[in-house]
C-alpha cells in the first residue's frame, strides 16, 4: 500500500526528523558534512523547480522531475568516491549533481539540443538512459572491467572502485534487470543496483509490477537485498556506503530498494491526477526528505540563519544560472549530427553529409526562383 512504511526498512531519521538507531547501519558525520548534504538536497530541488518553470515557459520540451526523491539520490550519490562509476536512468539529477555535472548539461536533453551535455568519462556518470533498465547490464559489465583491472579489494581507498546502477520500480519488470542482478551475482561484480521505488511507473502503481517487495528479488539470485527509507538521506547514505564498501572490498553486489515517492508528475507531459489521489500525495508530503532533514539539523542546532541565507542565495544564483544558461545553450548545427555516429568514416554517412551540405548550401546560394518552401509545423512537447 503506497504510504504505509514497509517492514524491515532501514531508517536513521524519522519523518519528524528524529535520529534513530539501526542495528546494522549508521553514519557518523561532521557538522559540515551534514550541512553539505542539506545543501545538496536544497539545491537539487531548486534545479527541479527551475526546470519545471522553464518547461512551462517553453524553454524545455519536457522535464522529468525528481521532487520527493532528493534524499535517495543525494544519499546514494554522496556515497560514491571519485573513482566510482554511476549509471543513471533519466531522473537522477541529484546523482548527476553529486558527480559534479552542471545541471545545464541535463537541460540540454530536455531542451532537445543534445542527448546529454556532460562528459561521461570525466564525471564517471554514464549518459542518461531512456530505455528502462538498459543501463544495468552495462553497469555490471563495467564492474567486471573494474575487477579485471585489479581495482577491487586492494585496500587502497583511492583505488578500490565500485559501480552503481540505478533503476525505477517499473524497470524491475524488464528481463534485463533480472539478468543484470544475476550476472552481478555469478561474477561477484563490484556493483550496487539501486532501485528507487517511487511507487509509480507513470500511471501504474508498483503492485502492477510485483506481488512482493522489490528487494526480495535479490534473494532469488543470492544477492543481499536491502530496503531503505528513500526519504531519509542519512539512511540512504549509510546503506549505499556500506554496499559500495562491500563491493570495493571484493564482497560482491548488493541490491538496494529505496522506498520513496514521486511527488510530482512522471514528466511535464503527465497528469497524475488521472490515476492517483491527492490524499496519497498528502501522506507522502508528510514524509518529505528535506523537511525531515531540516528538522533534524535544527534540533541539533546546526542550521543558523547565516547558513540558510547563504544557501538561499546560492540556490537563487543556481536558478539564475539555469535560466540564463538554458537560453544560451547552443543550437545544434545541422551538420553536426553527422559527426558522432561512427568514430571512423562510414561511406554512406559521409556521402549523406556531403549531399546534405550541398543541399543546405543551395539555399545560401539563393538560386533564382526562390526561397525554400516552409517546413510543416511540428507539434512539440506533446509526449514524453
Amino acid at each position, binding site marked *: 500500500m503506497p504510504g504505509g512504511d514497509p517492514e524491515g526498512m532501514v531508517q536513521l531519521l524519522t519523518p519528524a526528523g528524529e535520529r534513530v538507531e539501526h542495528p546494522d547501519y549508521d553514519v557518523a558525520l561532521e557538522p559540515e558534512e551534514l550541512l553539505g548534504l542539506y545543501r545538496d538536497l536544497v539545491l537539487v530541488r531548486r534545479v527541479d523547480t527551475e526546470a519545471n518553470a522553464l518547461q512551462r515557459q517553453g524553454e524545455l520540451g519536457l522535464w522529468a522531475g525528481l521532487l520527493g526523491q532528493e534524499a535517495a539520490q543525494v544519499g546514494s550519490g554522496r556515497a560514491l568516491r571519485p573513482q566510482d562509476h554511476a549509471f543513471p536512468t533519466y531522473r537522477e539529477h541529484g546523482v548527476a549533481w553529486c558527480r559534479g555535472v552542471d545541471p545545464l548539461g541535463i537541460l540540454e536533453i530536455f531542451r*532537445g539540443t543534445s542527448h546529454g551535455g556532460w562528459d561521461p568519462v570525466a564525471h564517471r556518470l554514464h549518459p542518461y538512459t531512456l530505455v528502462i533498465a538498459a543501463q544495468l547490464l552495462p553497469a555490471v559489465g563495467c564492474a567486471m572491467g573494474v575487477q579485471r583491472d585489479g581495482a577491487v579489494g586492494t585496500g587502497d581507498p583511492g583505488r578500490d572502485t565500485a559501480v552503481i546502477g540505478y533503476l525505477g520500480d517499473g524497470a524491475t519488470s*524488464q528481463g534485463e534487470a533480472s539478468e543484470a542482478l544475476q550476472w552481478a551475482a555469478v561474477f561477484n561484480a563490484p556493483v550496487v543496483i539501486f532501485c528507487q521505488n517511487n511507487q509509480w511507473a507513470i500511471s501504474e502503481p508498483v503492485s502492477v509490477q510485483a506481488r512482493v517487495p522489490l528487494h526480495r528479488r535479490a534473494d532469488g539470485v543470492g544477492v543481499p537485498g536491502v530496503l531503505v527509507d528513500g526519504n531519509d538521506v542519512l539512511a540512504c547514505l549509510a546503506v549505499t556506503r556500506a554496499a559500495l564498501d562491500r563491493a570495493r572490498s571484493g564482497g560482491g553486489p548488493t541490491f538496494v530498494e529505496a522506498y520513496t515517492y514521486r511527488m510530482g508528475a512522471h514528466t511535464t507531459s503527465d497528469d497524475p491526477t488521472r490515476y492517483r489521489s491527492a490524499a496519497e500525495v498528502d501522506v507522502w508530503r508528510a514524509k518529505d526528505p528535506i523537511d525531515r532533514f531540516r528538522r533534524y539539523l535544527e534540533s541539533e542546532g546546526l542550521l543558523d540563519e547565516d547558513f540558510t541565507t547563504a544557501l538561499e542565495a546560492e540556490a537563487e544564483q543556481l536558478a539564475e544560472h539555469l535560466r540564463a544558461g538554458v537560453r544560451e545553450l547552443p543550437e545544434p548545427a545541422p551538420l553536426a549530427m553527422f559527426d558522432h*555516429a561512427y568514430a571512423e568514416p*562510414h561511406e554512406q554517412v559521409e556521402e549523406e553529409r556531403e549531399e546534405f551540405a550541398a543541399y543546405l548550401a543551395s539555399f545560401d546560394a539563393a538560386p533564382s526562383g526562390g526561397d525554400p518552401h516552409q517546413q510543416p509545423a511540428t507539434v512539440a512537447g506533446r*509526449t514524453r
Partner: protein
Amino acid sequence: MPNLPLAKAINAGLRTAMERDPKVLLMGEDIGRLGGVFRVTEGLQKDFGEARVLDTPLAEAGIVGTAIGLALRGYRPVCEIQFNGFVYPAFNQIVTQLAKLRARSQGRLELPVVLRIPFGGGIGSVEHHSESPEALFAHVSGLRVVTPATSADAYWMIQQAIASPDPVVFFEPERRYWDKGQVETDATLADVAPLHRARVVRRGEHVTVAAYGPTVRLALEAAEAAAEDGTQLEVVDLRTISPLDVGTVAESVRRTGRLVVVHEAPTFGGVGGELAARITERCFYSLEAPVLRVGGFHLPYPAARVEEHYLPGVDRVLDAVDRSLAA
C-alpha cells in the same frame, strides 16, 4: 460522418472491434486508467473492464510473449508498444515466435496478434520516441506491416488488422495523431479498401511520389508546392509495407516514368530501397530516371532541435523531384 483526429479514430476502431468480438483484448503500459500516453485507448478500460484492457508490467517481451499465449487460447490481443524505440526488448518474441509459429506448426496455429507502434518524428521529443523501425519488421516473414496516414484509414485499418489471422505490426504516425479527418463509420469491413492495397491519393503526370504514414501529408504538401511551378506529382499512399503493393506503384510509374520514395526511416536499408529495386525491375523500360529516395540519414535519431533537418521535409522532396526531372 464524424471528423476525428487520427488518434481518436484508432480509439473508435478499437472500440468497434471490441464490441464486435469479445475475444479482442488490449494490453500495454499505461493503456488502462491513463488511456495511453497518446490517449489512444482512452475510456476503453472503463467500458470494457480490466480483464480486456490490461495495464501490464513494464516488459515488452512480456507483453508480446503473453499475447502470443493468449492468441493460442483464442484471444485477439492488441498490444501497445509505448514508443517505437521501446519495441526491442520484445524483438525476440516477435521475430522468433510471433512471426514463425504458424509456419513452424505447418499452419496449425493461428496468431491474430496486433502490435500497435507509434512511430516517426516531428513532435520534438527525446531519444527513442521518434524512430521509424518499420524496415526491421518488413524483412521478417510471418509479419504483416501496415501504417495509416489518415483518420479514415486509421479507423478501418486497425479493425482489419485485428480481423487478420496473421500477426500485424500497425505503425501509427505520431505527428499525425492530432490531424483530423472524416471517417465513414457506417461502412462495413468488407466494403472498405483492402488492408494490403496502396492508394493513389493525388493524380499527376510528371513524377510519382510514394509515401506512407507520416510522409503522405508531406508528399501532398510537396505536390501542392510543385503544382505552383507547374509540376504535377502523383502521390501514392503505400498503406502497406509488408506485403508491398508494388503493382499500384508500378502502374503509376509506367505513366509518369519517374519515382521518388519518401519515408522518415533512414534511407540506407530502408523500405524505399526495396521498392526502388522492385519498381526498377518491373518498369525498367518505362523509367526516365532512376528511382530516388528521400529519407532519414544513416544516423541515430538526433536531438529534437535538429530533427527538422534529419527528417525529409517538403524541400528535400522537391529537390528529389527536380533531380528526377533533370535526369
